[in-house]
């Protein structure tokens, strides 16, 4: 399945619980779960420091480009990516075939610690997302023509 079409409040709570726990243990600033198309599935942490939507789009692009690089040298993909800055750093890792976890952290913690706790968080997220996909296949979201007509032009 390419993406997760419907996220209920319980689904988001389950994902956020994993992310909160991860942030606390790894002492990171921000954790975002995105699909490989750049859509945000959920996010936790200090959301005021950056535009998370843009971070998600760029992270997905970066991850996708790196996957292609990996394939060129005979690897399936590099399942983690680390960008080191002067004060802020980004760690990205593959959760499953369609999902990426992006972590933003500063010098309060280390990449080793982030990487260590990411492994556990990713495994938990994968379980949550698998359950969610199975359940989501039976759920639908519908609009009526009136809903759309009432909205008028979107822009």
């Amino acid at each position, binding site marked *: 399945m*390419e*993406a*997760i*079409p*419907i*996220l*209920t*409040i319980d*689904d*988001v*709570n389950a994902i956020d619980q994993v992310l909160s726990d991860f942030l606390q243990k790894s002492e990171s600033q921000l954790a975002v779960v995105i*699909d*490989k*198309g*750049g*859509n*945000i*599935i*959920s996010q936790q942490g200090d959301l005021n420091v950056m*535009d998370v*939507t*843009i971070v998600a*789009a*760029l992270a*997905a*692009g970066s991850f*996708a*480009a790196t996957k*292609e690089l990996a394939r060129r040298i005979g690897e399936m993909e590099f399942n983690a990516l680390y960008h080191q800055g002067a004060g802020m750093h980004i760690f990205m890792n593959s959760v499953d075939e369609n999902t990426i976890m992006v972590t933003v952290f500063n010098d309060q913690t280390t990449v080793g610690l982030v990487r260590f706790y990411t492994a556990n968080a990713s495994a938990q997220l994968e379980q949550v997302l698998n359950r969610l996909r199975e359940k989501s296949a039976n759920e639908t*979201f*519908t*609009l*009526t*023509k009136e*809903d*759309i007509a*009432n*909205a*008028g*032009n*979107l*822009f």
Partner: protein
Amino acid sequence: MSIINYASREIQFKIVYYGPALCGKTTNLAYIHTQITPENKGDLVSLATAADRTLFFDFLPLNAVVIKGFKTKFQLYTVPGQVIYNATRQLVLRSVDGIVFVSDSQWDKMEENIESLKNLRENLAKQNMDLDEIAYVLQYNKRDLPGVAPVEYMDFALNNGKKRVQSFEVISTTGQNVFAALNAVSQQLLYKFTKESDAGKKDPISVA
């Protein structure tokens, strides 16, 4: 693929502006960025070369109207038009919900338009998608330039899939019909959520 989030009451959509090199895809996004109020838009991010040619993609996040209690959020992307960047175009098309195909109306660009549209169908097919099944509109851009093909010819050359789609005569530098095309593809996206989804059965509309 769109994501519906009941916790944040949001629906996310991804729209990709596709077309040949230098047809005006980035100009479309730049115009939209100038017209949307600051609270409803993010930064326009351009991953371009020093010569302002798109290298990876341009990206513009937008908030639109609230429908049935859900805020609609749109992510607009462009692809790099140059032929050599096909691998990048395939990446940008991942999880796409809607396509705005931007064609260049000048006669001498017609071959590039047709080639790019063929490339779009091929790239969608690689991810098991069909242009005839997704939200899709056509822009005939650069209508202000001399040496442009008549709309009838543009239709003949480009609007010739299984179904006729909505097409728009656009001047992206001045913004003419840029929002008309964006609104049309957005409406088609929403109609995909209606039970009696008939977005594809509507008569094609040409906007002069």
